[in-house]
């Protein structure tokens, strides 16, 4: 269960991943699922800022996009960086062409009241959805407090079952996100740690396959441009955007405002910085690769010269 799945109250119909046909220019098929960081692309589509060269293939969760990339049905996708690395290691070379958002507090560690500090975590059982981005958060956190995964007892559990486990006393701590985090807090838990304390670690990115980047650079440019145009509307016309996001996600405008507060939406200049050679994305990707391999969540390290490619970023957004 992906952490963003809870936002999926109204699941967008998964468009048929049918054959694109051999004649005419096939649009760049881009996998996407509801998440505040990916909203710019939805907005761009809604306002008609995506040209015909880009087609959004709307899935329910990140797993849909990963599956699509691996099967070759998708040319691009909006996923987290660790998900991208996993797809890469399974044999589909990718390039990161834009950073959609950086988590600043979306992922939190909620603990039982008797745990006062991070060091008290030793020996505790921690509920975590290992396959998702929560796993990344956990390992990054453990690394930070100097513990190994052996020194805690990990309970691999989908986030939506954490509350139940909490009440049953199966877990002493939970790595989760809204709304589970709030529910656990109401049940007496306290927020001991969140992703805002690990800045620039959890990235949501736009990736394209190596093949698409080489063969259809114009379509990739259109995709990236559409994202930034949507992003500008989201930021500048937030009075409008919140209602549209809320409508699509089926939540209240206030909930959208709250979730916007848990992410950073980097603008063009910030993207240039993140995607630079040996920039933040590539540094984090290397560290993530080490962690994922060490924890047995990835078999082989993806081989690439450049993972991040800023060449598709527009000069400006008009």
């Amino acid at each position: 269960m992906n952490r963003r799945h809870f936002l999926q109250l109204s699941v967008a119909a998964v468009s048929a991943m049918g054959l694109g046909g051999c004649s005419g220019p096939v649009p760049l098929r881009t996998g996407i699922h509801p998440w505040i960081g990916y909203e710019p692309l939805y907005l761009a589509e809604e306002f008609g800022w995506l040209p015909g060269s880009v087609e959004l293939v709307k899935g329910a969760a990140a797993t849909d996009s990963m599956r699509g990339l691996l099967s070759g049905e998708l040319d691009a996708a909006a996923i987290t960086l660790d998900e991208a690395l996993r797809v890469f290691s399974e044999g589909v070379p990718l390039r990161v062409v834009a950073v959609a958002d950086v988590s600043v507090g979306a992922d939190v560690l909620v603990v039982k009241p008797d745990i006062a500090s991070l060091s008290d975590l030793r020996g505790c059982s921690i509920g975590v959805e290992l396959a998702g981005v929560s796993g990344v958060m956990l390992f990054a956190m453990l690394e930070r407090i100097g513990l190994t995964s052996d020194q805690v007892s990990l309970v691999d559990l989908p986030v939506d079952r954490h509350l139940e486990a909490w009440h049953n006393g199966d877990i002493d701590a939970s790595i989760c996100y809204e709304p589970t985090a709030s529910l656990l807090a109401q049940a007496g838990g306290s927020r001991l740690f969140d992703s805002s304390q690990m800045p620039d670690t959890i990235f949501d990115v736009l990736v394209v396959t190596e093949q698409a980047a080489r063969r259809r650079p114009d379509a990739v440019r259109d995709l990236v441009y559409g994202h930034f145009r949507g992003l500008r509307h989201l930021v500048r016309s937030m009075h409008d955007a919140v209602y549209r996001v809320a409508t699509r996600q089926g939540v209240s405008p206030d909930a959208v405002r709250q979730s916007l507060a848990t992410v950073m939406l980097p603008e063009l200049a910030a993207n240039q910085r993140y995607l630079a050679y040996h920039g933040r994305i590539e540094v984090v990707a290397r560290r993530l690769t080490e962690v994922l391999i060490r924890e047995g969540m990835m078999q082989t390290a993806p081989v690439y010269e450049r993972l991040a490619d800023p060449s598709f970023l527009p000069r400006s957004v008009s």
Partner: protein
Amino acid sequence: MSFRSFAYSLVLFSAIAGAWSSTVQAAQGVTLGIFAYRPEPVIQQRYAPLADYLSHESGLPVRLLVLNQEDMNRALATNQIDFFLTNPSHFLVIRSDRSLTGVLATLERDWQGQSTGSIGGVILTRAGRDDINRLEDVRGKSIATPGMHFLGGYQAPALELMDAGVDILRHNRVVHLNSHDRVIRAVQTGDTDIGFIRTGVLEELLLGSPDLMAGLKVVNQQQLSGYPFVVSTRLYPEWPFVSLPHVDSRVVRRIASALFALEQDHPAAKAAYIRGFSPPADYQSVETLARTLRMAPYDQVPRVTWLDVLNQYRVWGITVVLLFISLMITSLWLSRQRRQLAIEERRLRGLIASWPQPMLMIRDAALVECNRAAVELVSYTSEASLLGKGLQAFSPHSQPDGTSSLQKMDTLIRRVGAGEVAQCEWLLVRSDGSEVWVDMTLAPVYEKGQEAPSILCSWYDINRRKHAEERQRLALRVFEHAREAIFITDAHGVVMDINEAYTRITGREHRSAVGSLPPLPLDEGSAILIAARKHGVWAGEFASRHWDGHATMLSLTLSSVFDDHGGLSHFVGTFTDITQLKETEKQLRTLAHFDALTGLPNRVLFSDRLHQSMAQARRQAYQLAVIYIDLDHFKPVNDAFGHDAGDGLLIELARRMRATLREEDTLARLGGDEFAVIVVNVADEPTLQALLSRLLITVSESVWVADHSVEVSASLGYTLYPQDIEMDGDQLLRQADQAMYHAKRDGKNRYCKFSDSGT
């Protein structure tokens, strides 16, 4: 007053004025202007509690002024307002007028438990309008709006329509009605097809008249969960609450804190249908909207100086300038080239037009161009009379070689079409019917874009040449077939050409005659060339020899031919063979002086000889004798044996007498049977008498004529010269005749000397 002290006093004055105004405010309270987006009483009623609340909370009397946009602008211009609340579009205009900064808060509207800080526009039409369903359908329809500076009531819908491709200022008739209520009425009554209003107005009116929506329809309705109002457009931040710069900052703080302290369940908030006030929103989206629509305060395109452009687009600018310069240079160069080409073309055209040789251009077997010379050659008056016609129009039905003109021209054009250059002689017919020979050259001219080549045709008038050729041919025929021999030599007399007659007369073949001298007189030789050169002509007769050796007589006329500079270049000679003529002439001459029967000199020649001999005798002082001989008994012989026998007798006797005489003596037959002899150089009388005796004997010997032996005798009389008196030949012969007569009388067969005695 120095500048410094002036500035100081200015600052002082401002400080005093500011302090004064704040005291005034403190004493008199502040004025809150509210824009009347609905009818003024409605707004007055809703916002009066808010003014009271602010008065109460801030401790300052707050006076409420409900104004429309014009009134508010006027009030602002005169500083009658300290705070105001208006729609964001209007705020932008005011802000740009006054350089305001102070948005204190953004209004948070409340509607039946739901709150929102966003405002949008509603596009309305009547429910029955089936033709208006989408934004695109609005094109061309009449539109009612409250005014240009209304965000929901104008700008927001205008942008949505612009995105849908409808520019309402160009495509629609727009009426401004100053209030949302009037817009709705205009749509309801059908005065306009479309109405623009802001969000919330419809819902407020629905409270009073719930069946309002039955007659209305919302175009492009947005489905936005959590938004309490019907909306057709994207959303923008709600109204700003603004303080003006002249207001004292302490007053502003007090009002601001009162605003933020307003709770949603406070009666003032409820009366105004608001949740309260939130921190100032980002009005950039409204600015972008106004900029996109080019509306006030962004209706003026900012004045961009050249320097700005240059700074921003330096590389582009330089590139464009360079391109422009190169374009200018290129176009200058091109125009110069074009001018030169035009001059060149004019010159060529003039050259061709005035070129004396006729030239024509043929395309698809018809003339498309020709020059003056061509027109003149065929004696037409203008080019137009030639153009468009085929060449056969100026040709006889058939050419001299027998083929028809049309057929021959077709063949030529086909050959030229295959890329050949054709040349031939061609007969043209002038407009006056006369014929003219031309040498015609046809050459293909390949022009771009044409499959078959055009044909350049030039004529060369060869009429004169043709006539000259004709004359030459005639001359040659004359030369060849003349009966007279004709030859041409060079200046030295060496033969260059001869005709057939030459060969016939001289027997020399052309081969051997050419290169050698022509027949010339033996004595004068090539001197006649000099004579001919000197006098222009030489004519004469001379003996020559035929190639096979026989003698000929030629009559030659040799003319000298002079070149243009008067120098001798050739001799032309003509001669005829006059051998036959000469022979005849000689025979005629013999007939006149000799006796045809005996061949002896006749009386004429005898007289001549006698005359000469007498002169000689006188000169050389010797004696001569004249003997007159008459045959005796000749007539009987003639009668007995016929004239032929007589003639034979005469011939035999003449021969015998001739043989008896000396060579230098002359025997002549004077007629019939009479003869005479001149004996020159007579030594003495006895010698003469001996001769006489011999003559008598000779004559008297028998002669065999006509198978008969005949015997005749002769009577001779003689006389001598000179005598005592001078006498002429006739007298001398008469003397001899008289002496002969004496001899006859004395018995015949004897001789007798003349004597004066008369015996």
